[in-house]
């Protein structure tokens, strides 16, 4: 029931006191006051040396750590995505061996903490002192550097999560699509890579933005194996100058900057993939459509949703 005013003479405008959101106004004032107090406390705190923060924010050590964090994030995501697609396809294969291997991988890597996985990779030498066979073997510790261990730990763990995302995407594609491909004589591999996966992308891509943000923060775990990431570099500096809090703030500023950028990327991805790939209605019209009463902006994606003319039982619906 909408609270329409009682029907009055159509000529006299309605004069009413708008609803006062008292709760909102009071809580707003309280939050604002708390914020001012906090900023004041931080800014005037004699235990906090702002010059240290300023000096280190763009210092070479921090920037090198920043670079490591960014590369770890990007490379782990790439490894994760490649593994994720492979494992998802294996998981959906009728081949029992492939299927079980994929299932086992997902089970193991999602079932143990990343932190433990990172430590296991880093300490691989304790278990396999040398990698390879006979003459063609290398000392494990020279191969598995902290950075490589970090990549293996983060990438393999991410692969297990991506596999589930990709699998969901594949399953979202109408079965009629692969059936039509098979009826044309296309083989399973072609069908997967030319028909199913391209259409699964619209379901797979948006959560990738989330994975990016999660991964950025997760890289800070590699500090425990002394990989020279942002947090690790910050801690190395503070172990020398004892400005622990200041350097944690430096690291936090950078993490916030990176996650903010990632959030922007994620929003763009979601917008772009929410409604089809090409030829979508111009954004403005889409917004107007969504503002119509009774219409819900839903994240549900129907295959073949590239609307202009809707055919009854449209393609792949």
């Amino acid at each position: 029931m909408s609270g329409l005013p009682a029907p009055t003479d159509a000529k006299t405008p309605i004069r009413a006191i708008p609803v006062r959101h008292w709760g909102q106004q009071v809580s707003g004032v309280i939050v604002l006051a708390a914020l001012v107090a906090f900023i004041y406390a931080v800014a005037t705190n004699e235990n906090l040396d702002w010059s240290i923060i300023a000096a280190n924010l763009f210092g070479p050590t921090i920037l090198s750590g920043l670079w490591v964090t960014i590369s770890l994030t990007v490379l782990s995501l790439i490894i994760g995505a490649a593994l994720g697609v492979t494992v998802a396809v294996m998981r959906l294969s009728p081949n029992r061996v492939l299927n079980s291997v994929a299932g086992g991988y997902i089970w193991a890597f999602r079932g143990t903490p990343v932190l433990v996985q990172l430590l296991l990779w880093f300490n691989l030498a304790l278990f396999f002192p040398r990698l390879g066979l006979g003459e063609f073997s290398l000392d494990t510790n020279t191969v598995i550097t902290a950075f490589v261990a970090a990549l293996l730990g983060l990438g393999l763990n991410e692969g297990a999560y991506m596999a589930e995302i990709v699998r969901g995407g594949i399953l979202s594609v109408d079965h009629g699509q692969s059936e039509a491909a098979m009826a044309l004589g296309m083989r399973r591999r072609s069908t997967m890579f030319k028909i199913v996966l391209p259409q699964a992308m619209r379901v797979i891509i948006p959560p990738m933005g989330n994975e990016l943000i999660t991964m950025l923060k997760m890289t800070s775990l590699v500090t425990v194996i002394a990989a020279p990431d942002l947090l690790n570099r910050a801690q190395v500096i503070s172990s020398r100058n004892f400005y622990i809090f200041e350097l944690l703030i430096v690291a936090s500023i950078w993490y916030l900057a990176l996650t903010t950028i990632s959030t922007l990327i994620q929003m763009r991805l979601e917008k772009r993939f929410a409604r089809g790939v090409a030829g979508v209605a111009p954004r403005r019209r889409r917004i107007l459509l969504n503002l119509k009463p009774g219409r819900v902006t839903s994240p549900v994606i129907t295959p073949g949703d590239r609307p202009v003319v809707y055919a009854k039982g449209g393609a792949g619906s």
Partner: protein
Amino acid sequence: MSAPMVTAENVHKSFGHVEVLKGIDLEVRTGQVFCVLGPSGSGKSTLLRCINHLERIDAGRLSVDGQLVGYRERSGKLYELNENEVADQRRDIGMVFQRFNLFAHMTALQNVMLAPMDVRRLPKAEVREHAMQLLGRVGLADQAQKYPSQLSGGQQQRVAIARALAMKPKLMLFDEPTSALDPELVGEVLDVMRDLAASGMTMIVVTHEIAFAREVGDHLVFMDSGVVVEQGAPRDVLSNPQHKRTQTFLSKVL
């Protein structure tokens, strides 16, 4: 009499405990337009899907153009074909679905071009030319760059027919190609099928379009709950059904 294109002998198919095909015997001759009629759930789609091995039969023999579907026979023994060999068998059989199933991420032209390039590995220029010809043949040359969702249902189904023809099949299977269409769009699809029949294509058509079966069909089969109840020349079966079940069905659809 022309050579048989499809031969089914005592074909059985079950899904779990439900027997959907209960011993089908059929012969489709080359160049024939073979219509299949029957109530919902009688196993018409299942029969078509068995013919190109989208479903595997449980018993009986099914062959297309003299080749067993899904098996190889050598010195009296049957060997199951592997997945790729089955795919290769399907190349020569075109299929048109009730719900079109056009590849949603590709334009009409790309839909038609994909299989000849991917499966037959023909050069792109040649495939493109043939695809444009086919789109012209179904009256859609000017819609080549449109995506499926930008086309009407009738247009989509015509693209789907062109897509199947691009593989130069020797047999076309139609599974209720007009059932998902608005009434005013049915005609344009049937026209394309009529042309195709006139060109000599062997076609198996599952349809509820009685007029089409009567005019274009060479042979008509009436199926009910997994068996062929009666068959013959469309005119005879439609105007003078012998079987009670056929009579009941026809009285409902006519």
